[in-house]
Each structure stands twice: as C-alpha cells, then as structure tokens.
C-alpha cells in the first residue's frame, strides 16, 4: 500500500514538473470595445476575439524590446505616443541604425483599415504585425528566435496561456495579442469630431458642447475649404469620421517614381506611384509627412497641394487641378486650412494611459 502511494506521489510530481511552470488558468475575460457613436462598427476577426488578457499581453509585447535582434527597439520605438504613434524621423531607425525608405505610419483607428503599410501588402492587422519583426531594416529578428525568447520567460508563458489557452507560444499568437491591443487605440475625441457631430445632427455631450463653443471662424472656414470642390478639395480622399477613404492614390508627389508603392505589390503599372491614403487624425503630431516623409511641416504639405503637384500617368484623377500645379490657395486660405487641420488633434488619445508604456 505504501509503495503504491509513493509511486503515485512521484507520478504527480513528474506531471507537475512537465507543466513548465504554467500555473495560470485559461478563463479569458471578454473585452467590449466602446465604439464612438459616430463611427461604424469595427469588424473583429472571429479567430481573434478581444479579451482583457489578450490586449494586456499585446500592450506588453508592443513596448517590449525583446522582439528586436539586439533588444534595442520595440514596436513603440517607431510608433511613439508623442508622435501620434508615428515617428518624427523621416525614416525609422531599425536595429544597428539601419534605415528603411518609408515613413512610419501613424497607428490610429486601425480596426477599420482594410489594408496595411503604405503599399497595402498586408490585408489584415494580424498579417501586418508579423512583418516588422523579421524585417532586416526594422527589428531584424527571426520569428523562431523571437518565440524562443518569449518561451524562456515564465511571465510570458503564463500570459500567453491566460490569453489564448496555449502552452506553446507561436508567432501567430504574438500577432493576435498585439492586434487586440492596437484595435483598442481609437481616436474620436478631437475638435473635428465635435464639428462632424454638429454637421450631422448627432447629439453632443456637455463636454462636447463646451468644445463646440470654442470652434473658431478660421477653423470653420478651413473646414469649408477642405470640403470645397473649388477650394482645397481634400475631402475626396479624407472624409467621414475616420478622415480617410480606403484606397491607394498617386497624389502628385513625383513625375517619375523611385518607389513604385502599390505597383510593386500588384505588378500593375497602373498602380505605380500609388500609396495608401492615410487618416488625417492627429496630423499635427505625426510629422514628417507622405510615404517618404519628405515634408517636415503642414505648411509644406499645403504648399504641395496648392502649387507643387507633378503630373504623371497614374496621378489620381481627383487631383483635379494638377494641370495648373494644384488648387492655388492664397495665404489666407492656407492659414484657414491649417487651422482646420489642427482641429484633428485628439489629446485624449495620445495621452491615454491605456495606450502608453
């Protein structure tokens, strides 16, 4: 009898030893996203439902430098809160100071995007997240090594188990967790949001009514110009609550292309020189601008659309005044347009502790 008891105890000991120190339970807490009243519903992938444990893990991974070759950079290094979750450098610095050739895109309202990267080479957020880690000009770490590093951490093993019920960490779970975190990064509390709600008869909260009273003539005039077909004519590509449409466009930056953009992905010459239309939310924070970060200021951007347009075979037909170099704004109009662009800043978004390291 004592012999059986001894064997049983040894067996239990071996079993527990093989559990690799995972002492967590898998009972994830569903996370309900609060979608702003003037936004469309966000489509959450069926195979990656939002959970508190998932997005908590995602945030930790997003800011952890363990995912880069020399442990010097994290996702958050090139998507910094004070830069509207973009990068103030023209080209982000990868490990060992390696530079890419595109500007870091701002991470905002990603749950509504239908393509990712300037050239749209990723179709889902999860797919997008898989790419920067092994990219030689970014984090330059093979996924096998990244997974090995995470697997060596008891804290990560527990967090992955709590989030996904898995004892074996895989890169797809890393992507899912970070995607959950990024989907929570919703920006909808700028002065523009109040203007949008007023324009469309959506009720304002008391706090929003205070903001409404602070809207200036210059900002409203700038908004009119922004929407006007014979003004700045911006709204074809930047409109609605998200301040963008989902498309690729050649906005007249160059007559010939050193970066084919979308065309390099599709192989279609008609796509050469086209890049993803970005949201203008928090645009004042996310300088420099364009896919190659060529413009340092909003003034330079406005000058480009006003008089700096270059025609080419694939220029967007919506750049309607390309034949005269742009929409030809005068100094007053430029100032008004800039005043409106500044209303797109959402300070609550960039200072939200839930999104900060």
């Amino acid at each position, binding site marked *: 009898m004592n012999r059986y008891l001894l064997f049983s105890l040894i067996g239990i000991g071996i079993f527990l030893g093989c559990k690799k120190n995972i002492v967590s339970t898998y009972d994830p807490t569903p996370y309900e996203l609060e979608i702003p009243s003037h936004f469309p519903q966000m489509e959450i992938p069926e195979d990656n439902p939002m959970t508190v444990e998932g997005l908590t893990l995602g945030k930790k991974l997003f800011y952890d430098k363990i995912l880069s070759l020399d442990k010097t950079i994290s996702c958050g290094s090139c998507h910094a809160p004070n830069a509207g979750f973009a990068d103030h450098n023209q080209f982000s610095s990868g490990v060992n100071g390696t530079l890419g050739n595109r500007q870091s895109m701002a991470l905002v309202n990603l749950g509504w995007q239908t393509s990712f990267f300037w050239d749209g080479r990723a179709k889902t957020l999860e797919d997008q997240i898989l790419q920067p880690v092994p990219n030689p000009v970014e984090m330059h770490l093979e996924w096998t090594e990244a997974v090995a590093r995470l697997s060596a951490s008891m804290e990560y093993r527990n967090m992955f188990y709590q989030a996904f019920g898995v004892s074996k960490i895989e890169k797809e779970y890393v992507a899912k967790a970070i995607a959950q975190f990024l989907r929570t990064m919703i920006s909808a509390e700028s002065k523009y949001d109040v203007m949008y709600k007023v324009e469309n008869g959506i009720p304002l909260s008391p706090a929003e009514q205070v903001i409404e009273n602070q809207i200036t003539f210059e900002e409203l005039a700038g908004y009119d110009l922004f929407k006007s077909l014979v003004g700045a004519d911006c709204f074809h*590509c930047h409109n609605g609550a998200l301040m963008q449409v*989902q498309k690729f466009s050649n906005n007249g930056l160059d007559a010939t292309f050193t970066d084919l953009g979308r065309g390099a992905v599709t192989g279609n010459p008609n796509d050469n020189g086209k890049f993803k239309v970005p949201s203008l939310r928090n645009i004042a924070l996310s300088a420099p601008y364009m896919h190659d970060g060529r413009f340092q200021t909003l003034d330079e951007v406005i000058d480009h659309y006003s008089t700096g347009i270059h025609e080419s*075979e694939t220029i967007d037909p919506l750049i309607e005044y390309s034949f005269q170099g742009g929409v030809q704004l005068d100094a007053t109009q430029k100032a008004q347009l800039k005043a409106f662009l500044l209303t797109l800043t959402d300070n609550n978004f960039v200072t939200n502790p839930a999104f900060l390291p």
Partner: protein
Amino acid sequence: MPLAFRKFTGMKMKYLFPTFLLAVSGLLITISCKPEEVVPESNEVTVEGKIIPSYGGTDLSIGEVYSLSNGVKFKITALEFYFEDVKLGETQMIGHSLFDWEERGTSWFTKKGEFSVGSALTYGIGVNSTANHADPTLAPTTSWLYATNANDMHWTWSSGYIFIKIEGKADTLVDANTNCNWSFSYHIAGDDFFTPNQSMTVSPSQVADKKYEVKLRFDFQEFFENQLRPINLATEYLTHSAAVEDELTEKIRSNFANAFSPY
C-alpha cells in the same frame, strides 16, 4: 481476489458473448426495418448577376487604353455605381448593390433561394432619398450602404452617396502617340439624379444545375458616343454634381442609364 468477485466475473464471461450477439442482431433488425428516409428535393436556385464593361462588342479591362470612334484614346481607372431594388421577375435579387470594377471585377450580385427565375429585370440607379440621407453607420453591416462598405462612395450625410463614379484618363490629341494624361472624373450624386424604374428583358442562362447567370453589358461607346448627347472628353471632363454642373451631370446620368443592355 475476493471469492464473490471471482464468481461474478465468471458468470459475466459465461453470458457475455450470447448477450453481445443478441444486441447486435437487434440493432441490425432495427436499422433494416427503419423506413427509407426520403430527402425532399431542394428547389433552391442560385442566380449570379454580372456586369461586363465593354466598348461596342469588345469586353474591356480596367486600366487598359482604348480608342473612341473619333480617335480619342481613353482608359478607365474607376467604375463604381449603386443599383437599387434589383428584381428579376417578382423576386428581389438585392436591395442595394455596389458595383466596383477595380475591387470586385464584373460581380454584381448573388441570390440564393426558392423562386422562379424570371426574365423581367428592373432596378433603379442610385439610392432613394430616404436612404441617401440616413446615417450610414446605422445601415445593416451586410448592406453596401453601410459606412465602411460604401467607403469613398459616401461623402457626407447631406450630399449622401455617390450614385455613379467614372474616373479615367484620356489622350484627346489624336495622333500616333498615346499619352493618356488628361484626367476625367464624373461623380453623380444628389436626389435629383437618382434614376428609378429601369427595366429590360434578359435571358438568364443556366450555367449549372439550378444555377443561373444574368449578364448585362455596360457599353462605353454608348456612354461616350451617345447619338443625342456625345461627351467631349476634352471639355466635358469633370462633374461632382455641384449646382453649376447640372448640365454635364444630367448628361452623364442619362448616358450612363442608356449604356446598359443584356449581354
């Protein structure tokens, strides 16, 4: 082993095989006596609608250069439009369809159900005024009117949806060179330019068992070179349906509606 347990085990072994045999026989009898289940034949049919952009009798490809009869060259970079209340016979195929040549090719709608496949096709072009000014985030997420599905085909709540979008490039200088650098852009919107009550007779073709296809042709020759209202790409290259653009907007709307025919 206790004696009682050994006795029980021995008894069990003795009767186990006959009992098993009896059970299997009973099961077989039950299965064989079960009346054959008659699966009712499904009358569900599938109708797939397609719209084929063409020039005369030639099917076109998006982004390729073609010539009008007068030698002006053109290429289409965007062809998108809303159809409303598309019916085949008495059956609605789709409430609102959004054709997008670049994104979804020639696909128009797919309807499955139990109905008879008729030949009378009816539809409207655009979006009726009630739906046109409703909150696009409140439409069903499966509808093409829903905000994210409409994408750049919805401007603002006041102007509503773009009913018809045709964008492209032209070379209006007729010579041996091809240089399509002249942009044209037609955006038709506004309640006044909704085109209801379109109809034609089509011949749905059976492409498989209980599967039918309805094809329409959208003829750019009819659109650009309408006998009554030809479009001059050199001078009539832009409308966003603003009040001052009514004349061209109406011409585009009318030519567009007349450019459809059974394929």
